[in-house]
């Protein structure tokens, strides 16, 4: 370590369910260079200062969606947030807001996984198709209708950003609704009627108060707020359809 080595203070919210009654803060002095991400700072702590610090990470390049944390109170991927942007002040890292803490910076994801399963995140074919008929064809327009909403990496930053999810954790929430929308507007899919039940439900889109912070923090520009709010319209249409068309609308 050279004399000119800069160090930054990283304050970490720690929690070990086996020994701690509640989360507490711990501050580490971390030597850093300008190219170091917050994730690398946290890794330095684990490697050289305290091996018991636990956090999720994998790709280090904003692809896998594992390393989301609250960084100075804002949800962000720690791999694409840089220590130099906080220096010389202290940087504070905490587990993603609105989720139960399993250990240190690791949150429990079960609730989200259940929501993902509930939206039936796969193509429910519109019509039976045999192998001999070959692959589905789509026009660029048809692809364009859903492509943006298929870029989600399930990092859960949008849930940590969503005040309504914070108030009511049964809200299906931004990422899951964006993905629901992705399948509903796919020209190959015929499952919309099934999924609309969830859109219209108590835990559906009308929990959203159009704050839009979810889209702001999304590292993949999925714009979940757009998907959620398009589905408020869809839900309203669905409601009226049930009076107009014999088979229209969800139950």
């Amino acid at each position, binding site marked *: 370590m050279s004399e000119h080595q800069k160090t930054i203070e990283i304050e970490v919210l720690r929690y*070990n*369910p*086996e*020994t701690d009654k509640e989360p507490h803060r711990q501050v580490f002095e971390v030597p850093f260079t300008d190219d170091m991400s917050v994730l690398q700072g946290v890794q330095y702590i*684990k*490697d*050289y200062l*305290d*091996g*018991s610090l*636990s*956090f*999720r990470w*994998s790709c280090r390049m904003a692809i*896998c969606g*594992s390393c989301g944390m609250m960084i100075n109170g804002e949800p962000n991927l720690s791999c694409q947030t840089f220590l130099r942007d906080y220096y010389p002040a202290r940087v504070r890292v905490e587990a993603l807001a609105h989720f139960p803490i*399993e*250990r*240190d910076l*690791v949150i429990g994801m079960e609730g989200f*996984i259940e929501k*993902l*399963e509930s939206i039936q*995140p*796969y*193509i429910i074919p519109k019509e039976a198709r045999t*192998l001999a008929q070959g*692959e*589905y064809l789509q026009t660029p327009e048809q692809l364009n209708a859903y492509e943006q909403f298929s870029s989600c990496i*399930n990092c859960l930053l949008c849930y940590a950003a969503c005040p309504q999810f914070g108030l009511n954790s049964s809200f299906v929430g931004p990422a899951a609704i964006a*993905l629901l929308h992705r399948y509903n507007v796919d020209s*190959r899919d015929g499952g919309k009627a099934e999924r609309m039940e969830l859109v219209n439900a108590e835990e559906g889109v009308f929990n959203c108060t159009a704050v839009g912070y979810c889209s702001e923090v999304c590292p993949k520009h999925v714009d979940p707020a757009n998907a959620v709010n398009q589905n408020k319209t869809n839900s309203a249409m669905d409601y009226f359809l049930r009076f107009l068309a014999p088979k229209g609308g969800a139950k």
Partner: protein
Amino acid sequence: MLQRRHPWRQPPGVEFAVRAVRFWTRRRGEEAARFAKAAAAGNSASLLKQAQAVEQRLVGLKTKTGGSERIATLRKEMAQTMEDGCGIYRLAETMQATCDKLDELKERFKDVNVEDKSSVWNTEWLLAIELEYQLDVAQTMAYSALHRRESRGAHQRLDGFEQRDDVNFLKHSQAHYVVGGPPRIDYGPVKITKSQPGTRAYGAAGEKAEQERKASHV
């Protein structure tokens, strides 16, 4: 390290694959059932003993105290010595140094310290388990490379073995685990079906080789 569930990431076409898998799984399942009915019962006491030995070794990494080696230090030294000795261009001297260094690291690993004694999301323990296996793999690579006295593919020697040697080395290196020591290296036969070994040439030499190849096929 992370097994994340991505059920929604099914690309089109997966359904066909799933059907094929179901079909073959059923066939294999039926075969397995026939085998299970005919075969004698395994020795479950012996299996349990083996499993317990593995468990004891792994849990021991976490429960022991007083170790003085940091996981990250060993891991970084391992990575550096692999860079030094087992890059693309290789020399016996540096490969030998890498082998020696890996032996040293395996020895030092016995003194590894896992600070985290908890049982919830203990990723430090996981890193220790991984490191031990990484050292085994590194030894396999380094010792196999040292014994391979020829150049082939990404294994390019600059110390008198610059040529490919199909007579002595058109074979698979096999590393055998040896308790308390480096792996024993021997060789197994290679079965080549379509892609015969050849010189990888580029530029003018590559064009010439390509022309010769075409001419020989006429």
